[in-house]
């Protein structure tokens, strides 16, 4: 440390000693830094949050029922299944790959659940485990095909889309539709399990406290390491804002049925995946491979292992999403996982802000993206518009999201940050 410039106070944090750094402090600094980031093309989840607000405002004006507690509760329940599938899509997109077969895999999982519960008389837990294991095995197969033969994931999963759709039909048999026993716990869980209000409020407080103490703990570790720390006021404001938003949401939903258990499961999965992506070696490797495969390989990362684990996770999330969807509809049929499931899951990840080009994104984009898609779908249903128009509008929104992704990429390039 002999090279520290003489004019730099020794007590200044290690990461703030460069005189070229524009120093920003406190709440004003946080706001300034945020504005600078946005202008530099690092939009994060800003476009989708703004989009969500605009969508809600438009539909609320067109139909006052849109923001009713009843509709919002339905909306959260509709989000859970496809949202869960979308978490897996976020993972493969981070690697710069794609999985087009998530719809078929989710349908296959639904078929396994249906046949297992009704014709094989398996216990629910066994049926769920079998479906998830099949999902994981499909992902492992994709991973092997991709890493051994170098077939593009686009083609592998396109083949998987057809093959597993066929397997789904085969398993369902000639009837093509199986009703799940209504009293099995997975159906109960997906259709009528809601958190009691006190538990929901408790969760809101826990979430805000976790944010606050997580930040405080990190600040103290940074201070110990001689690094700069954010202002305590910013942390406090963030935590209080989160608390207000969550408590308000819980209170509003509680006027109807409350917070659905499946939606909570989905959000928990998003938070867990976010932790793995941002705070573990595995997550760091995923981003590295998505950014530059060659650099990751030279750094000693076992690239093939990363590809295989991500494909396994993606197919497993697809299977789990299929289970949730069929449990909510209490049936497994030919149409399980068909129709727009596939594209909604992919669109949600992209709309949420995960780049199609790999290496950029976050688990939260699954949550934000699916909220946008389901809001549009739910709003158009309330307006009595049929699915033809719904598809067209969802397609337009997807296109808009991809355009925003490409534009922000170009903006990063022109600001020297691509």
């Amino acid at each position: 440390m002999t090279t520290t410039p003489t004019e730099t106070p020794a007590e200044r944090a290690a990461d703030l000693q460069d005189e070229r750094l524009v120093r920003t402090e406190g709440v004003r600094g946080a706001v300034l830094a945020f504005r600078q980031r946005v202008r530099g093309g690092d939009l994060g989840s800003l476009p989708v949050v703004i989009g969500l607000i605009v969508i809600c405002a438009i539909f609320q004006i067109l139909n006052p029922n849109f923001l009713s507690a009843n509709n919002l509760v339905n909306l959260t329940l509709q989000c859970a299944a496809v949202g869960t599938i979308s978490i897996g899509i976020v993972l493969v997109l981070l690697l710069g790959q794609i999985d087009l077969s998530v719809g078929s895999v989710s349908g296959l999982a639904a078929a396994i659940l249906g046949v297992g519960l009704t014709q094989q008389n398996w216990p629910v837990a066994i049926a769920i485990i079998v479906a998830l294991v099949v999902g994981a095995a499909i992902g492992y197969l994709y991973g092997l095909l991709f890493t051994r033969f170098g077939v593009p994931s686009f083609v592998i999963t396109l083949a998987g889309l057809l093959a597993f759709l066929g397997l789904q039909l085969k398993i369902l048999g000639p009837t093509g539709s199986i009703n799940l026993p209504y009293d099995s716990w997975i159906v109960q869980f997906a259709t009528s399990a809601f958190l009691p209000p006190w538990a929901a409020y408790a969760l809101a407080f826990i979430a805000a406290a976790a944010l606050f103490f997580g930040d405080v703990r990190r600040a103290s570790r940074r201070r110990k390491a001689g690094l700069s720390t954010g202002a305590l006021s910013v942390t406090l404001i963030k935590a209080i804002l989160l608390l207000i938003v969550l408590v308000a949401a819980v209170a509003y939903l509680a006027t109807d049925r409350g917070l659905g258990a499946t939606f909570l499961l989905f959000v928990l999965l998003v938070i867990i995946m976010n932790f793995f992506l941002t705070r573990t070696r595995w997550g760091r490797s995923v981003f590295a491979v998505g950014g530059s495969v060659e650099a990751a390989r030279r750094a000693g990362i076992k690239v093939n292992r990363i590809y295989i684990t991500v494909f396994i996770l993606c197919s497993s999330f697809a299977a789990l999403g299929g289970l949730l969807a069929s449990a909510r509809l209490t049936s497994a049929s030919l149409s399980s996982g068909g129709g727009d499931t596939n594209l909604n899951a992919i669109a949600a990840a992209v709309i949420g802000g995960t780049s199609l080009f790999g290496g950029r994104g976050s688990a939260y984009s699954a949550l934000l993206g699916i909220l946008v898609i389901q809001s549009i779908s739910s709003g158009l249903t309330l307006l009595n518009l049929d699915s033809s128009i719904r598809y067209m509008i969802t397609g337009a929104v997807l296109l808009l999201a991809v355009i925003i992704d490409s534009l922000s990429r170009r903006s990063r390039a022109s600001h020297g940050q691509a």
Partner: protein
Amino acid sequence: MTMESAVAEPTSATREPVLSLRGVSKGFGAVRALTDIDLDIYPGEVVAIVGDNGAGKSTLVKILAGVHPQDSGTIKFDGQIVNIPTPTASRALGIATVFQDLALCDNLDVVSNLFLGREIVHGVALDEEEMEQRSWSLLRQLSAKIPSVRIAVASLSGGQRQTVAIARSLIGEPSVVILDEPTAALGVAQTAEVLNLVERLRERGLGVLLISHNMADVQAVADRVAVLRLGRNNGDFHVADVSYEEIISAITGATDNVVTRRASAHAVDAAADNAATTAAAEALAAPSAGAVSEPLPNNAIGIDDETEETR
């Protein structure tokens, strides 16, 4: 991983080479890329390898980096004969190679790139604070001019990226650093930055193998120059005692025989007495390589095709 401990005083007392190659050969099919190469690298010394295109520089780097094993000959590392079958083996020995394309992940920040594949963990979670602190102390030791380690590598300049790549190679505490064309794509100021960095590696007691086309850089930082020509050793000079033209002659093959080598040694002796070195070297080179012996711009190797033929 205390970086301070590695900053030993420039080792001059210990004259054991840290890396020593004897009779190393490598062929690709019918092509003999390297023939009987001898090379020694001492701790605290910068050895430049120069040579024309196709002289075998990259092959030599790849052998040391574990990309291809050699066909014959021995490599000694710290006095022990070693095999380098894979890149991992090379790194484990303590040879860090910075390839020309740097291999950084543009979407990750400086800290993530420095510790990529060697992240420090605290339980299951990454220990970001520890990694950031170590990044700063490492970059400060190298006097690197990087304003923030939390910005994506994409937003750094070419010289800064080179600095990050070199700093990354030091995380594993190597004893030899191989730099492949570190200044090839850089501007004047950034080149100077990288050359400073090379000097700092030498001060830390590391052996540095510098592959370069740029004679100005070589003369600025290297202690010794090893010339390769058509896959063979073609001279090993102390930079202090050799002129630019002599190196060029060795590269192009203008002095490719015993007689000229002897004569050039004589010319060097004469230089101690009078300043006629350049003239002498030119006189030597002139019969065979007229084009080369002309005063050259100090940063380009003007190799004409005729030079090859006149050999």
